C-alpha cells in the first residue's frame, strides 16, 4: 500500500512540476496546488497507513493508528486553501492590469 501511494505521490509531483514550468499563470497555480496535495499525501503516509483501529479509546483493538499526521494535514490543507485563494485573486488582478497571463511578458525592465 505504501509503495502504491509513493508512486502516486511521485506522479502528482511530476505533473505539478511540469505545470509549474509552463508560461500560463493559471497552469502555474494548478501545478502548485497539485504539489501541495502530493505533500499532504506524503504526510499521511509518514505515519504509516492502516496500522490499527481508529485512535479512540474503546474495548476492542490494542493498536491505534497515528492521529498526528491527520491533524497536520488538516492544518496544511487549510493554509494551502487560503494561499491558493490569494494566488488566484492576485493572478486575476495581474491579468487585468497587464492584459496578459503569459509569465514571459511579465518580466518588466530595469527602469521602472
Amino acid at each position, binding site marked *: 500500500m505504501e509503495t502504491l501511494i509513493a508512486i502516486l505521490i511521485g506522479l502528482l509531483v511530476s505533473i505539478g512540476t511540469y505545470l*509549474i514550468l509552463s508560461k500560463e*499563470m493559471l497552469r*502555474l497555480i494548478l501545478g*502548485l496546488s497539485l*504539489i*501541495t496535495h502530493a*505533500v*499532504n499525501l*506524503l*504526510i499521511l*503516509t*509518514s*505515519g*504509516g497507513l492502516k496500522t490499527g483501529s481508529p485512535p479512540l479509546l474503546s474495548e476492542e483493538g490494542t493498536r491505534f493508528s497515528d492521529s*498526528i*499526521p491527520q491533524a*497536520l494535514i488538516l*492544518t*496544511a490543507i487549510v*493554509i494551502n486553501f*487560503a*494561499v491558493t485563494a*490569494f*494566488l488566484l485573486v*492576485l*493572478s486575476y*488582478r*495581474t491579468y487585468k*492590469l*497587464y492584459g496578459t497571463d503569459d509569465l514571459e511578458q*511579465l518580466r*518588466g525592465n*530595469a*527602469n*521602472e
Partner: protein
Amino acid sequence: MNNLLILPIVIPLLTGMVLILLRDKVKLQRFLSFLALFLTGVSSIILLNQIEENGIQTLQLGGWEAPYGIGLVGDHFAVLLILTASIVGLCCLHFSFNSIGEALENHFFYPLFLFLMTGVNGSFLTGDLFNLYVFFEVLLIASYVLVSLGGKKVQLREAMKYVVINVVSSSFFLVAIAYLYSVTGTLNLAHLSIRVAESGQDGFLTVIALLFLMVFATKAALFIFYWLPGAYSAPPTAISALFAALLTKVGIYAIFRMFSLVFYHEPQITHVVIGILASVTILLGGLGAIGFWDVKKILTYNVIIGSGFILAGFAAFSQDALTGSIFYLIHDMIIKALIFLIGGSIIFLTGTKNLRDMSGLIRTHPQLGWMFFAATLSISGIPPFSGFIGKVFVTKGLFEADFYWLGIIGLFSSLLILYSMLKIFMNAFWGETILSEEEEKGTDKGLIFPIFLLTALTIALGLFAEGVVPFIQHAAEGLLNPDLYIDAVFNGTWVP
C-alpha cells in the same frame, strides 16, 4: 510554566483582529498598533529579566505536558530577537504614519503589520516544528498581502514571484517535516534533539537536515536569494524596511535553532555546507550591491550580504563565532531598517530611484546625510558603531576554527558593503545641489524621528556593548548546550 511567554504572540494578534473592525478610524488604529508593539517590547524585557534569573522559561499550552502538547520556549536567543523585532517594528510603524498614505491605512495596513509581527514572534518562541511551519505561514501570508497592497503594476508582478517561490519552499518544508516525523516519531524540538542524539545522525537524517537547510535558506536569502531584490524593492518604504529587518532573520533564526539543537552531530557536513553557501552568498550579494545604480536594489543586495555574513559565523559553531553571529544578527536587524528608511526618504525627496539623477542633498538635509554616513560606517564595521563588535567576534571565531577562507571572504565583504554604501552617499548627498527645497517631490517632515532613534541605537549598541554582550554570550551558550533547552522543556520528567 510562565504565562508571560504567550504575550508577544497574543498582543499583536488580538490587537490586529480588533483593528479590522476599526477600519475607518485611522487615528485610533495608529494609536492601538503603536501601543500593542510597545507592550510586546515591554513584555519581552520582563521575560529577558526572568530568563537571566531563572533560566529558560517554558509554557506548555493547554496543560499538555511535553512532548504531547505544543509548547513555547523562551531562551536568551529568542527573547533578545523579539525585543529587537519590537523596537524595529515600532520605528517602521512610526515611519509609516507619515509616509504610507490614507489609502493603505484604510485598507488594513495596520492589522497586516501586526499579523506579521505575530508570525515573527511566534516563530521565535515556538518549541514545536510543525508550529514553526504554521507561524512561518502566518508571517508569509501577511507579507504576501503587504507586498501587493496598493496594487501597483510592479507590486503585483513581484508579489506573484514572491508567493510562488514561497509556496514551493513551504511544500518542501512540509516534506522535510513528514520525513523527520516518519523517522523519529515526534515533532517537539527538544524531543527531536533527544531522539536524533540517541539514534546518532546517520546518512538519512543528514539528508533530511540538508532538506531543512534548503527550505530555510530560501526564507533566509542564503544562496537562494534571486526572489529577494524584486520583492523587497516593490512595496512602500515602511514595508520594505520591515521585511529587510525581520523576514530573512526568521529564516536565519530557524537555521540557528535546527542546526544547533537537532542536527548538530555532523558539523563536518551540514555546517561546512552552510559555510560554503554563506561565502557564495556574500560574494554574489556583493557583486549585486556594487553593480546597480538603483538605491533600493543596492540596499536589498546589502540584505543578502548580511544574511551570508551571519551564517558564516554560524558555520564555525564556537562560543566566539556564535556570540559574534548573534550580535551581528541584532545589529543587522537595526541597521537594515535604518538604511531602508533613509533610502526610502531619499526616494521620497527626489522622486527617483536612480542614483544618477540625484545630487547634493546634504545641503538641504544635513541630518539625513550624516545619519546615512553613520549607518555606512556601522554597516561596514568601523568602530565605535555596532557592526564592529559583531565582525570582530565572527572573524575571531572563524580564524580560530580554521575557517580562514571564510574569514577572509567575510572581511572582504566589508569592502564591498563600504563601496556600495559610499556610492549612495557620494551620489545622493555630495555634489551640486540640483534640487532646492521648493522643488522636492516629497517632504521628510515626521520621517526623521524613527531614523534618528535607529541611528542612536546602533551607536549605543557599539558604545555600550559591554552591557549587551553578556546577554548574547548566554544566548550563544544556550545554542552550544542543547541540554539546557531539553532540561527546561521536560523539567526533569520521564521522557518517552
